[in-house]
């Protein structure tokens, strides 16, 4: 691995370009275009999505508890989160005296950047994907572990007992559930033959019965459910919210964070919720496909892409809403239950899905003759 870096890194970057100018121009143009796109994405898509998710959480929680929830700022209280953000700008960020200052300040940024980085592989339409990374799905998993490191950094740097206890739970839980998450995501990869999220989405055109959910039945259906639950654990959402169990650990890893640094964690959490739901919807729920035969987003130009983006956002928000619904439905699990569920149920079931899907590809798929 490292020799490759030594030799090819130095030799590869400076020379070997196919014809002078061409590659350089592509690089330059793509930097400028990428910059514009990413700015638009970060400011107009990712942040509003996270803000909307926070509003949705508060309104839904209100509805489920037979109260109203925030409804004053803006229509239906939609601007409440923005108002809160502005208010939090004026709140002082305290740093405990015993904290490790550099790590304490770096942690929110690491978490925030990881949550945003995952959006790079989420396709919004047939032509609208920030990047079409060939290892897209593995990239999401990789960034997920990077985010966990940011959380550990926060808890460790705080030097607070509650934060540290929460951190240990986060680390163990996120790490354990990364396995079923990875294996259940393998099932659509296996049936599609690619890890590129955009390509997997493109294969689910036509009616809703072509969605990934029904591939290699029932392997992908089960894998979707497993992925969703493992994602819940990864996101530290109820019923896996014991890392920040307020009744025992105050607030978990972000106990010591206040003001803007706290709200950055908060924003990152909801951004991650949305993007993981988005990835799940692209793998199994057709992504930007409408699911209505005849309404093919791919052939409709800009409007098709817009419709596709609405589909992705809608499906992802639906999954986010389910996460919120589960929060007020299920009691919190104990640590030993969380671990047992992962290693003894999720892991073998996801492996069984994998084997079943593999058998389906080699036996049933050739008989159908189609591309699944």
């Amino acid at each position, binding site marked *: 691995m490292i020799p490759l870096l030594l030799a090819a890194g130095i030799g590869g970057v400076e020379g070997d370009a196919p014809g002078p100018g061409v590659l350089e121009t592509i690089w330059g143009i*793509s930097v400028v275009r990428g910059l514009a796109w990413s700015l638009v994405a970060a400011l107009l898509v990712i*942040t509003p999505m996270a803000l909307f998710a926070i509003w949705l959480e508060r309104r839904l929680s209100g509805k489920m508890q037979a109260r109203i929830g925030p409804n004053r700022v803006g229509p239906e209280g939609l601007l409440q989160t923005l108002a809160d953000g502005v208010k939090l700008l004026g709140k*002082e960020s305290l740093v405990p005296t015993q904290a490790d200052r550099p790590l304490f300040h770096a942690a929110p940024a690491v978490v*925030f950047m990881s949550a945003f980085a995952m959006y790079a592989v989420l396709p919004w339409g047939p032509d609208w994907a920030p990047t079409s990374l060939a290892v897209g799905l593995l990239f999401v998993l990789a960034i997920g572990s990077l985010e966990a490191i940011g959380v550990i950094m926060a808890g460790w740097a*705080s*030097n607070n007992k509650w934060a540290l206890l929460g951190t240990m739970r986060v680390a163990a839980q996120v790490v354990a559930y990364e396995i079923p998450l990875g294996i259940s995501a393998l099932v659509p*990869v296996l049936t599609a033959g690619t890890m590129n999220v955009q390509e997997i989405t493109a294969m689910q055109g036509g009616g809703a019965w072509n969605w990934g959910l029904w591939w290699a039945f029932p392997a992908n259906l089960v894998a979707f459910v497993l992925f969703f639950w493992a994602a819940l654990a990864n996101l530290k959402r109820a019923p896996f919210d014991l890392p920040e169990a307020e009744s025992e650990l105050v607030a978990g890893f972000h106990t010591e964070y206040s003001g803007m640094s706290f709200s950055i964690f908060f924003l990152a959490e909801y951004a991650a919720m949305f993007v993981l739901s988005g990835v799940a919807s692209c793998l199994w729920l057709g992504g930007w496909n409408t699911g209505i035969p005849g309404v093919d987003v791919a052939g409709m130009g800009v409007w098709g892409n817009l419709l596709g983006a609405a589909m992705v956002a809608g499906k992802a928000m639906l999954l986010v809403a389910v996460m919120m619904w589960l929060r007020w439905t299920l009691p919190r699990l104990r640590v*030993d239950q969380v671990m047992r569920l992962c290693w003894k149920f999720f892991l073998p079931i996801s492996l069984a899905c994998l084997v079943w899907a593999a058998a389906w590809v080699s036996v049933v798929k050739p008989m159908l003759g189609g591309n699944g």
Partner: protein
Amino acid sequence: MPESPVPPPDVYVPLLLVVLIAGGLAAVLLSVSTVVTKLTMRRRLRSPTRNTPYECGLPILTDARTRFSVKFYIVAMLFILFDIEVVFLYPWAVIYGRGDSARGGLGLGFLFLELLVFLGILFLGWLYVVRKGVLEWQAE
């Protein structure tokens, strides 16, 4: 452009930019917040107890970083082992799901057999770990 070691820029540049912009956004929010707090607070409260770590109102006696149960370490070890397995399975899955031409002469049956051998050996390990009770969080 697989023939060139320089990566296709369309793939990685937006990725890098998203990360940088996220970092920039976080930095801007934090610094604006710092400036706003500096300007709006009439008097900075200073007292030794104000910046102590959150506790139940008692003075902090010990460092929070005490020793932890070895169980966490075992979970991390198991994770690495299974994680490497998952990573190995991804190239296999990509090859497996492609059309016959893309598979380059490798038969599906053969690939399936390879999966079964690979998973079978690991299943034995999983069984051993389960039988040993390593995954029992409460068992001491």
